[in-house]
């Protein structure tokens, strides 16, 4: 099944979106699609700087529900997410799988280059990934949409 989660952030250095295994110790979710955008009035043309990094705890933030593209799918109990993080997850060193400067006036779409390029999460409860704006630049609210399947 495929799941879609969306998170946002207005503060540099805190994650916009955290995706985590809630319960899974036998399955390995795979991220295959990420979209970056901003919402709101742009204060300057300065890029914002996003990273995607692995995490071992979910941090503190607003819980989100993941949507799925198939209306017949069951409710997801395995994939969890948080938005507007106020306390960052515990991040894993040397695990940055995405590091991009982005114009606040643009929208950027990353799709894995085939199944080989998907970001594979471990089958460990509470482990996952975090998408963090290191700098906000001219953006007001940074938004990240992430698609994965389990």
């Amino acid at each position: 099944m495929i799941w879609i989660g969306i998170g946002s952030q207005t503060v540099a250095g805190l994650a916009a979106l955290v995706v985590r295994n809630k319960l899974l110790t036998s399955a390995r979710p795979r991220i295959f699609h990420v979209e970056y955008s901003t919402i709101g009035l742009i204060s300057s043309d300065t890029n914002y700087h996003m990273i995607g990094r692995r995490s071992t705890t979910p941090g503190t933030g607003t819980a989100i529900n993941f949507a799925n593209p198939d209306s017949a799918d069951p409710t997801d109990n395995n994939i969890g997410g948080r938005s507007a993080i106020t306390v960052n997850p515990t991040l894993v060193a040397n695990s940055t799988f995405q590091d991009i400067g982005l114009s606040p006036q643009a929208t950027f779409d990353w799709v894995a280059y085939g199944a080989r390029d998907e970001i594979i999460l471990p089958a460990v409860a509470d482990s996952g990934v975090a998408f963090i704006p290191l700098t906000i630049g001219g953006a007001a609210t940074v938004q990240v949409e992430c698609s994965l399947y389990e």
Partner: protein
Amino acid sequence: MIFKVVGTQTVAGKTILTIVSTATIRPRLLACIYSQVGVVSTDSQWQVQGKRFTAPGTTTGLTPASTDSADPAATFTAGSNATVEPTYTANTTFQDLGINPRSTFRWVAYDPRDEIIMPATANNGLGFFLNVLGGATTPQVEATVMQ
């Protein structure tokens, strides 16, 4: 196994990112994301050139991040922010792009035939050379590498 590495540079005429092979593997470049971080001074493009080298120069070492958390560490090595340039091979420029400092550009191989393949030779590899800084502050290159 597939890994991600990210290099940065602030000085024109210096290399942003190096990917270095060994005698036992043939790494393949699958995709790149070109972007820049920091205040844009003018709308003048920055220019990056991807070329092969036979000696990697002097860089800040990077630790490649795997796309699969169960993978072992990478065998190839990578470096950022060159202070001594790699020894580039003439007539091997596989990418030469002008990029608006306000934009982000992604190149993805058309299919496996289009991937940039490095030789199984120690210290040989690929470099991303910042030819023109333009209005950018800190250009950066994120590379997707399979070994």
